[in-house]
C-alpha cells in the first residue's frame, strides 16, 4: 500500500516537476532557490494528502499551496550578488538569447510586485484562470483578486514598457 502510494507520488512529481517549478519561479519573481524551496514544501504537503487528492486534482492542490505560500511571503528578492558554484553559461546569439532576456526582464518585473499582486498576475496570465478561480486559489474575495491582478498589470506596463512595445 505504501509502496504503491510512493510510486504514484514519485511518478506524478517526476512528470510535473518542470511545470510546477516554472510556476514556482514566476511566483517568487525568478528566485530559483526560493522557488525550489517553495515547491519542495508544497510537494511535502502533497504527500500527506496524496490518498485524498491523488484521484482528483493533485496539480491543482500544489498550485493552491504554492500560490498561497508565495502570496503570504513578505520576503523580497535580493538583487545583490549571489555566489554560485559555476559560472552561468553565456547566452548564444539569436532568438533563444532574446527569449531568455525577455524572461529575465519578466522575472525582474514580477519581483518588484507585491506578493499578492504577483500571485494574482501569475495565476491570471500564466495559469489562465478566471478571476473567480484566482480568488479561490488565493483565498480572498473576487474583487480583491481582481484588484490585485489589475494593479499588478498596471505596474508591469511601466516596468516592461521597453520589452512589450505598444501596438501602432
Amino acid at each position: 500500500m505504501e509502496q504503491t502510494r510512493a510510486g504514484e507520488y514519485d511518478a506524478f512529481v517526476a512528470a510535473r516537476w518542470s511545470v510546477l517549478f516554472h510556476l514556482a519561479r514566476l511566483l517568487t519573481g525568478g528566485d530559483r532557490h526560493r522557488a525550489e524551496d517553495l515547491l519542495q514544501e508544497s510537494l511535502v504537503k502533497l504527500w500527506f494528502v496524496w490518498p485524498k487528492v491523488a484521484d482528483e486534482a493533485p496539480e491543482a492542490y500544489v498550485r493552491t499551496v504554492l500560490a498561497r505560500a508565495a502570496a503570504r511571503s513578505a520576503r523580497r528578492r535580493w538583487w545583490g550578488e549571489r555566489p554560485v558554484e559555476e559560472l552561468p553559461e553565456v547566452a548564444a546569439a539569436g532568438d533563444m538569447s532574446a527569449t531568455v532576456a525577455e524572461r529575465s526582464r519578466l522575472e525582474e518585473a514580477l519581483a518588484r510586485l507585491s506578493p499578492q499582486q504577483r500571485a494574482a498576475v501569475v495565476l491570471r496570465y500564466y495559469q489562465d484562470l478566471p478571476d473567480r478561480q484566482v480568488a479561490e486559489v488565493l483565498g480572498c474575495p473576487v474583487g480583491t483578486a481582481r484588484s490585485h491582478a489589475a494593479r499588478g498589470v498596471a505596474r508591469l506596463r511601466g516596468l516592461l514598457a521597453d520589452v512589450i512595445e505598444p501596438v501602432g
Partner: protein
Amino acid sequence: MEHMKHMQERGHTDRVDGMDHFERQLTRLMHSPQEQVAFDARHRHRLHAGVRTRRRVRAARRAAGSVLAVAGLGLGLFLWPHGHTDDRPSAPHPRPAVSPAPVPSASTTTTPSPPPSTSEPPSGPPSSLTTDSAPPESTATASNAPGADGSSSTPTYGQPSATATARDTATTTPPVTATENTPAGPSDDPSSVVSPSG
C-alpha cells in the same frame, strides 16, 4: 476609468478575449519556452527527507498534544473534589429518642450500654454514664424488666447512690417521676408502662 483612458491613449484598444495587446504579450512571455528542469536524484532525496522530517514533526506534535491532554486531565482530576460526604459538615450522630413512654422490649434491644440489670432499687448507670443522654432509657429497662417478670438479677455494674440516680432521671425524664411499685421512684421508668403489666 483612468486605466481604460490610459490604454486608449497608448493605442491598446485591440482587445481580444478581454485582453489588450499588453496582456496578450504578457501571457506569451509567461508561456515562453522554459528550461526543462528534470526531477533528478538530488530533488528526490531532498523531497523524501522533507517528508520524513515533516512526519517526525507531526508525530512529535501529536505526542506533545497527547501529553498535554493527559496532564490536563490528571490535573483536573487532582483538583476535582473527592466526594460529596467530605464536603458536607458532619452532622451530629443520631441519638436515641427519649420518649416518655418507651417500649421496654425495644429499649432493651437498642441500648446496649447498661446490661439488663433488674433490681428494685434504682439501677442508675454509673456516674460516668450519667453525663450522656443514653442512661434514661437504661434505667427504664432496668426497672421494667423486674416489674414484668418479678425476678431480680445481679447488677453487672456498681449501683450509684439513690440521689445520683434521682438527679439523673430527673433531668432526662421529667414526667415519670412518680412511681407506685418502686420506692426509689424518680430513677425508674415510667410507671405507666409497668403498672399495666403487673
